[in-house]
């Protein structure tokens, strides 16, 4: 399937999903006016990819400086989808890149990762 790239904007993250390389990146700021509609095509492409992928190492890099409350809910759903992909014998590696000075972002990553134990989650400090 085709890779998905969405260029970043002031209030929207860069989406760089290289499905062909099993490497997905979500990076930047996320506070769109309507998070559900912004993420709808992203979530649809991810679901499509995960549905056809098995016995594969998938790497997902999150590097978010800020996300608002409605983006938070969607991130939780993305983690859930990645977790469910393990049932197809995929190994999903999640790198949660965060500013070491930012407890909120780090705690959010650690907290939701603890819900989804099949994910190979790693918090990676990236100084701002």
């Amino acid at each position, binding site marked *: 399937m085709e890779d998905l790239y969405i260029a970043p904007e002031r*209030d929207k993250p860069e989406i760089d999903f290289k499905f062909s390389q099993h490497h997905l990146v979500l990076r930047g700021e996320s506070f769109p006016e309507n998070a559900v509609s912004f993420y709808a095509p992203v979530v649809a492409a991810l679901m499509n990819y995960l549905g056809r992928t098995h016995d594969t190492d998938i790497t997902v890099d999150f590097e978010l400086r*800020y996300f608002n*409350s*409605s983006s*938070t809910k969607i991130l939780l759903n993305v983690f859930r989808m990645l977790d469910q992909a393990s049932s197809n014998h995929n190994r999903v590696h999640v790198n949660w890149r965060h500013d070491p000075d930012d407890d909120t972002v780090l705690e959010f990553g650690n907290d939701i990762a603890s819900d989804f134990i099949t994910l190979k989650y790693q918090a990676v400090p990236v100084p701002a």
Partner: protein
Amino acid sequence: MQTEIYRAFRNFVAEQGVIFYYNGYLSQPIVAAIGEALRGKLEAEDASGKATRKVFSTFVEMMQNIIHYADGAEALSGTATPFGNVAVGRLGERYYIVSGNSVANSHVERLKSRLDALRAMSSEEIRAEYRRKLRTEERDDNSKGAGLGFLTVAREASEPIEYFFEPYPGLGETLSFFTLKATV
């Protein structure tokens, strides 16, 4: 405005530590632009990264709340564009963010009960409620976001959030003016 009044206005703004004040139409591009300016200003003032993030997060949640929920725009301005106001300031070591917008009287009781519930919670209870709400699929019909906006504001705050409602001047039968304040 007479120049002496403007001088008094400037003095008042300085006394209250106001860093930024805006009153007018609100849209997502305005929120993004003001947010960026606010961040730049806080960084220039040497605010800590933590304070800057909390102020920015609170600002975005309050403004998006207004964009999603402000009522009465048609009655007030003849257009559907929401408007409201916001002030960000610093008094001592603390930053405050205050926002104001019109809401339909029919929503006032529901908002009061949600805000009173948040005011009564400790910061641990707010965090626990945030975790619970994040994981539930429940949505109230009036919620266009994730229903986490006020909780996020309360979570960032170092003191209970404050609010008041007053009848909207001239339109008090249908509208109230809602003021919300958070200190971080």
